[in-house]
């Protein structure tokens, strides 16, 4: 019985491997839809939920960097770079198998069309970015991340610590020079980012964060959702600057607590 199960499993694995090879980038299913290069059982749901009938393609210019194996499911690093695409208006990041798939949305203003951040994963999942260009087309890229899981249903460290809550929305940030003459802003905000999925702890997360230059021009707008990691850290790259003023950080969480800081040089 056990041997028969093993044979069946082997054949299934064989078939899956064969179909994965067949589903290379650019392949289409009989309905004319692009086949998911990550071969995720949730892709059809993701496509329906986030993109409906909008035009969409898998595009190697959408680069998602994340570790193959996430050591800490509560703090999985990811970096999305869509700067190879022209005219990106909005980027949606999602993880197919998270109980709350939507991780964040960012709109690059004058900043480079890239963002580093950390997320929580409940189980192994594709982590994807979909960039919408001015023509309304979605360009999708992603990578599988393997993890032991549990990241979304655990309480945050902050939810159990009044000391941390007294520093809520405190911003630590710093500017770093870039080799291209531009600058990098890294910022960390103290916030529990509770998903609402841990028993007895209501949803509580930053839902808006904006970076602007001293003249008030938008550099980057980020809308984080529940799966963004506790005490989130963001990496934003800026082109070479003309104006030497401070960078303004503003935003709020879903309870209306404000975030306001300046990053001086």
């Amino acid at each position: 019985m056990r041997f028969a199960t093993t044979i069946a499993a082997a054949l299934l694995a064989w078939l899956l491997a064969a179909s994965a090879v067949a589903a290379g980038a650019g392949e289409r299913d009989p309905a004319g839809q692009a086949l998911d290069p990550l071969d995720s059982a949730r892709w059809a749901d993701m496509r329906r939920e986030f993109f409906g009938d909008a035009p969409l393609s898998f595009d190697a210019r959408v680069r998602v960097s994340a570790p193959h194996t996430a050591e800490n499911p509560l703090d999985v690093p990811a970096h999305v770079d869509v700067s190879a695409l022209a005219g990106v208006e909005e980027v949606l990041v999602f993880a197919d198998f998270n109980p709350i798939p939507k991780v964040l949305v960012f709109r690059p203003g004058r900043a480079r069309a890239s963002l580093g951040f950390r997320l929580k994963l409940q189980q192994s999942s594709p982590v994807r970015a979909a960039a919408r260009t001015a023509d309304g087309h979605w360009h999708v890229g992603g990578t599988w991340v393997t993890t032991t899981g549990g990241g979304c249903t655990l309480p945050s460290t902050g939810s159990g610590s009044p000391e941390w809550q007294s520093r809520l929305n405190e911003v630590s940030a710093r500017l770093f020079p870039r080799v291209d003459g531009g600058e990098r802003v890294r910022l960390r905000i103290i916030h529990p980012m509770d998903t609402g999925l841990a028993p007895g702890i209501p949803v509580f997360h930053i839902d808006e964060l904006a970076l602007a230059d001293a003249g008030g021009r938008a550099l980057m707008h980020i809308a984080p959702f529940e799966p963004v990691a506790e005490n989130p850290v963001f990496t934003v790259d800026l082109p070479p600057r003309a104006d030497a003023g401070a960078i303004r950080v503003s935003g709020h969480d879903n309870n209306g607590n404000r975030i306001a800081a300046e990053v001086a040089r």
Partner: protein
Amino acid sequence: MNVRANPARAALPALLLAVLLAAFPLAARAAGFDYRLAPRAVADGVWVLTGLTEDFSRDNGGNIVNTGFIVGDSGVVVIDSGPSRRYGEQLAAAIARVTPLPVVLVINTHHHPDHFLGNQAFAPATLAALPATRHGIETEGPMFNSNMYRLNGDWMRDTEVAAPTRTLAAGPVEVGGRTLEFLALEGHTGADLAVFDRRTGTLFAGDLVFNARAPTTPHADIARWQASLDALAALPFKVLVPGHGPVAHDGAPIAQTRTWLDWLDRALREGAAAGLDMTEMLALPLPAVFERMALAKTEFERSVSHLYPAAERASLEEQ
């Protein structure tokens, strides 16, 4: 009538069988769940069981750790009990093949699962560790144990946490008719016990020292770890048993562990000071000196996950 079997048809089932056997050599080998433990004498009355320099897997059943035992005049002291109940039982059987003397003390050098999950095979009254190690096993042990089932599969069957019942402290101790010196150190975890047998000059360093295998850092404090390496290097040892990797007869594994920790610490601080994103830290190339160290890339990536958040926080809060 052709009575000869069609050779192609006869070959097909055999071929299928061969393909299946080739696909499942690990399961077949693991079926007996025999760790093939072979204690090796490294000094008079001092025995070591050397594990593989691999990660936990369903193939190795978690046997990636060094354990050992010291046979005194009246009893046996065990140093670390291995990754599973089966390992502990096979370790106890291996000891019985070497000596008829009873096991009088089982030391867990620290609270990581490959060092205490064999405890069930020994009498509860013999199980001993430093206070913080006892606390760590009691609080984090069950979580470690379920993770080990996930990593090692059926090798773990019936393994449960058997926490130490006795507390150890630094200093010389008469046990089993032999004098051992305990060193209460820290850095790999919050409490790391090293055992020095003065009679033979054998030092069991626990996971403060790795040899030809990259150190692991889930509970590490690098500065304290480096101070502990200084303390170990100052001992007049002749045989050095690291927590992982081959036994040595000089201080090279201490120097190697120190080189890794120095480099790791510097890479983390410099990366944070340069504003590297964590994904960029993970992509950093490793120095050539670590090319032959097992699991260097894997452990570096894990260490970035464990330690980079604190390094970047320090960098961002600096100003």
